[in-house]
Structure formats: C-alpha cells, structure tokens
C-alpha cells in the first residue's frame, strides 16, 4: 500500500481506482454504489455505509463542510470526520433515528432535490441555521471540532507543524525567523 492508502485504510476508507468524474459539484463527486458504499472518484476513496442510509451519510459529509467550510480541505477529511455517526447508528437504533430524522428535516426544508440538491452554500447554511435548535446539530458541530481539526493530515494545510520535540524544538528551526516586521 502507498502512504495514502495506509492512511485511508486506517481511517476506514478504501482506495479504489475509478474513471475520472465527468460531472462537477458535490452531488456528482460522491456516487452511491448498488452495494450502498460512497465513492469519491476524483479523490479515489470509498466508504462502506452500514448503519445509516448511504444518502444520509453523503448528506452528513456536505453538512460537515457547510458547518466548517475550508476550501483547501478535501471531502475525504469531512468523510473521516463524520463516519463515526454511521458506526454509532449501526449499533444504536435510537441514534440512527435521531440522525435520519435530522437529515430528513433538512431535506424536507430544502424542497425538491433535498439538502444535497440545493446548489448554493448560502442556501444550505440558511437551512442549517433553521435546524440549529435541533440537539443533533450541536452534537454534529461540537463533534466536528475534534473529529475534523484533530486529523494530523489536515494540519499542514493550515500551516501547523504539530509535534516538535523529536526535531529538537524550534530553537534552530525558525522560532525567531520573522523577517517582515
């Protein structure tokens, strides 16, 4: 396995080779297979969905991006951040009903095409705001603070270097290298 494949496997995603997607946008970027997995062709990952409806998991990934939108962060990190809800739903019918109910309410409010079919972020954010009194919204939001931002793989995107003790700290690696002041 390559390093990327190892990371994906550790996070519960698998790497699969697929043809390049022809459509654009989130709705088309993640396809749902006949076996109920989510496929992201351009990022080359797949996620088996067991506890939730695959459509629900797909919607949750977009909900995660709309709550904490970072344009340089790929879908797979949002998928990793949210896949725990599928695991929880698989063993907990009450949890499953709560999540499905939250997404169904978003879809209902969105009208035809549902939440994912709503093409503009501003419109989806308005839907989320209307739904933000639902305790499930706060569960998802507060959970994301850890499950998204605590992924070491995204830290370089923000310019955060993480652990430094093993490299001798920054005493000889730029703790005082600022040059623009």
């Amino acid at each position, binding site marked *: 396995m390559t390093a990327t494949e190892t990371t994906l496997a550790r996070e519960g995603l698998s790497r699969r080779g697929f043809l390049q997607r022809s459509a654009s946008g989130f709705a088309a970027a993640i396809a749902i297979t006949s076996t109920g997995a989510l496929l992201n062709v351009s990022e080359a990952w797949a996620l088996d969905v067991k506890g939730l409806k695959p459509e629900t998991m797909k919607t949750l990934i977009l909900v995660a991006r709309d*709550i*904490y*939108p*970072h344009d*340089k962060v790929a879908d797979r990190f949002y998928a990793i951040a949210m896949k725990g809800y599928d695991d929880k739903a698989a063993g907990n019918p009450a949890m499953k009903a709560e999540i499905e109910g939250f997404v169904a309410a978003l879809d209902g409010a969105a009208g035809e095409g549902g939440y994912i079919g709503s093409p503009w972020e501003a419109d989806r*954010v308005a839907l989320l705001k209307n739904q933000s009194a639902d305790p499930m919204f706060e569960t998802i*939001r*507060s959970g994301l*603070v*850890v499950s*998204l*931002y*605590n992924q070491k793989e995204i*830290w370089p995107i*923000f*310019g*955060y*270097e*993480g*652990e*430094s*003790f*093993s490299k*001798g*700290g*920054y*005493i000889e*690696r*730029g*703790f*005082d*290298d*600022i040059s*623009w*002041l």
Partner: protein
Amino acid sequence: MAAKFDQNDDSVVVIVGSGAGGGTLGNELAQKGIKVVVLEAGKRLDFSDFINDEWPSFTQLAWTDMRTTSGSWRVHKNFPNLPAWIVKSVGGTTTHWAGASLRFQEHEFKEASTYGHIPGASLLDWPITLADLEPYYAKAEDKMRVTRTGDRAGLPGSNNFKVFEAGAKKLGYKEVHTGRMAINSTPGDGRVACHQTGFCFQGCKWGAKWSTLYTEIPKGEATGNMEVRPDSHVALVEHDASGKVTGVTYFDADGKLQRQKARIVAVAGNSLESPRLLLNSASSKFPDGLANSSGQVGRNYMRHTTGSVYAVFEQPVHMYRGTTMAGIMRDEARNDPSRGFVGGYELETLSLGLPFMAAFLNPGAWGREFTTALDGYSNMAGMWIVGEDMPQETNRITLSDQKDKWGLPVVDVHFDDHPNDVAMRNHAFGQGKAMYEAVGATRTFPTPPYPSTHNLGTNRMSANARDGVVNGYGQTHDIKNLFISDGSQFTTGGAENPTLTIVTLAIRQADYIADQMKSNTI
C-alpha cells in the same frame, strides 16, 4: 530513598496535592527533617511521558472528573462540565502551567484600602504585605530559576513575541520583554535550557520549565523524609472530639478506602478541590464543613479577568514555534481608575495549536466567519489578558448534587463577571487589538476566557476570623493543625499569574509550621 510511612504514624504532616503549593511545601518540610506524606489524586508520570499533541495530552493530564457550573459566565454555556483547565497528576498544574512568574505589586495586598468601596465586591486587605513576602519571593525565584531575576538572563524572543513587542512599542508601551519565566534560559539545577519547542501547556518534555514533578518532589524524596502516594484521592479530613484534625481518608488506586493519620494536615488541592474537601468533611461538630465558622469556605472564587486577542497578518508568524508565554507588556498592570476600572492587567504572548484553536477561538461558532479565521492560522499572532477580577461572595464553590465515582459530591462552580471585570476586559481587548493593528493586522479577534487556569480565593486569608478561612500563614482560624497551602488562600487575585506567589507562600508556611512544631504549639 523515598520514605515509606506507616498509615498509623500520627507524627507525619499529610499534604493533599503535589502541585505548586503541596509539592513545594512537602520538599521544604522534608529538607527541615519533618516527615511528610503527600497524597496525590493523579498518577505519576515522567517528563519523557508528556505528549506534544493537544488532545491526547489533555486526556493524559487534565482533571476531567465531573464538575458542574452555574452563573452567567460563558464557560458555563460552552464547557458546562469543564470550569477549570487544571491537572490531575503528580506535579499538579505545574506540569501544565506556562511559567510566567511575577511578584504581586505592593498595593495588591491592600486593595480594600487602596480601591475603597466597590459595590458588589468583597475586597479585603491581606493580613500580610509585600515586605513580608519579599525574602520568600527571592527564594522562590531562585528555586524556580526565574529569568530576569537574580543574574538569570531572559529567554530569546520568538516570532510571536516580536510581533507583540513591535506593536506594544508602536503604542508607546515601555515595559515589554520576554517575561520572568520559570523556564531555564541556561542549563541549571540539573535541567537543560529551553529548546523553543512550544507545547509548554502539554508538559515540558525537556524538563526546562520548573515543575514540582521533577524538582521539589524528587528533592524532597531524596531526604528520606517524604513519601508521595499517587492515585490517592482524599475523601475526608477527620478530627477528634477536641476539634483537632487527626488525619485523612482516601481512595487508593483500587478504589479501596485507606486512612492516614497525621499531626498536621495541609490541603493543597487548588481552589476547587480544597474547599470541596473542607465542605465534604462536615461533621456533627462542624456541620458547615471544616474551618468554616466564617461561612467563607468556597466563597470569593476568583479566576482572573482573562481573554485573548488573536490577529491575522499578511505574512507568516508561526506563533506556535517557541516558548508559549515568553512575552509580556506590564504598563497596564498599575492601578489607574481613570481607565474606568480599578486594578490592572498584564498582556502576555499566547498560542494554541490548530486543534485547540478550533476549540477555543470562538466556542460554538461555525460558518465562514469562523473558518476563514482558522485559514489564517500560520499568519496569526496571539496574546492573553491576565487581569485582576473582583472577589464576590456569590462567586463560589458549592457541593453539587452530582457525585463522583466514589460517591463524593463534586463541586459546582458559580461565576458572574463583576462590572469592573467587564470594563477591564474590554479595555484590554481594545489595547491588544490596537497593538496588532499598529503592525499591520488585517483582522483581529476577541477570544472569550478559556476554562479557568488561575483558580483563587476560596479559602481566603484574613486578619479577622470572621472575614476569611486562614491567617497570614495559611493556618485555618478554626483548627490550629489544619492548613491551606494553595491559591485558595489568596485574599485578592492581583494582576499577576499566581504560581510564583503560591510557591512563595508555601516556603514561608513551611518555616512557620516547623517553628510551631518545634515549640509544640501544634
């Protein structure tokens, strides 16, 4: 070499807690030949065990046992079960602290006299003065190897400090430097110098920052007079019919209730757990809890007026590189009521890693206003406000109706800002923003207070027994052989990070206890 004392040995001094107060007191007494048993609720780590990763480190070190909150402070809303970010481990919060070591100012020991009547505030003069503490401050600074004291050099300035310093100077501030830090600027005391690693809050993996874990505690143990028992959660302080304390009961690592007899008990569990222990120890003789004839146990809880200012610049800063808090501006620490509030505040450099920045920059926030701020992380600089807060009788620790895993009531922490606190915080937010804008910040953020790291005042010192819990030596007014040895002794909070003063009081208290034992007064 560490001692092992019998649980029925009633000649020992039992100290509850091994942090700045308890760890220091234990070593000081052991050096004088006094037998000490230190009971610590947390486990014992070595500094090599510390983790350069914020969430795993938090799991390793933080006190995460149940606590509850109430009041109008925002921590109650965002972190209802985490009122304080303090440590459960041998060494206590000296593993996590940033190292800033400032002496109190003279007027901060006599605030009732200096500030006059402030409605809603329960201000009181300390029963001791700066002059009383000066020789002990010097001993503490030597022990902790505080930079810019004695002949010790300051730490070098990091990127975050350079931005801070340039902004402060543009505003005309004068007292701006890399701080008085209990972090080795040169090797000493068998420990290496600072490597500018960041992660000061996660425990210094070099041991360059002073912590009782690898200074006071092993030194005390080396005398053969001190035993540290980790995983020992003290349940009750016990007393006899005369009202003298006789020892403590505690739950060991296996959850088994143990008893340690004692000649003297010194409580140093911080301003949340210390009053909890006194209140939980209520008996038929002391129905309101031990040492609580004044009704002041748990009251006057202070947490400093804090907050942070973060700013994003056009070009990189990398604020997380280097010593977290080695940067200070002290010009606003004076008492100058013309600013619209009494007391003063320090501004100190601060940074958080990306995971904690996401959690604390604006808790509960979401959407692009929030995420674009994090997108600027590498170009961000940060500072922390540390100011005095007004003691208020209604800001207090009480016993919650919730219980911990041993069935002991946990604490509820109630806090409301005083109008003086709000005015000070707003002033500091404005000055911090102006400092950063003076050097080109394109966006600044006022960040609300984190869960409290400076927890003070809940067993306060007073000259008169009706006004507080302990006298000028931390000895309880009601029970001669019961002492308080942590920041809960503070009568008022001052504008300074409290650890140096906690250590100073512990050194002075050790002299007093030794004298009292020698003269058989206790």
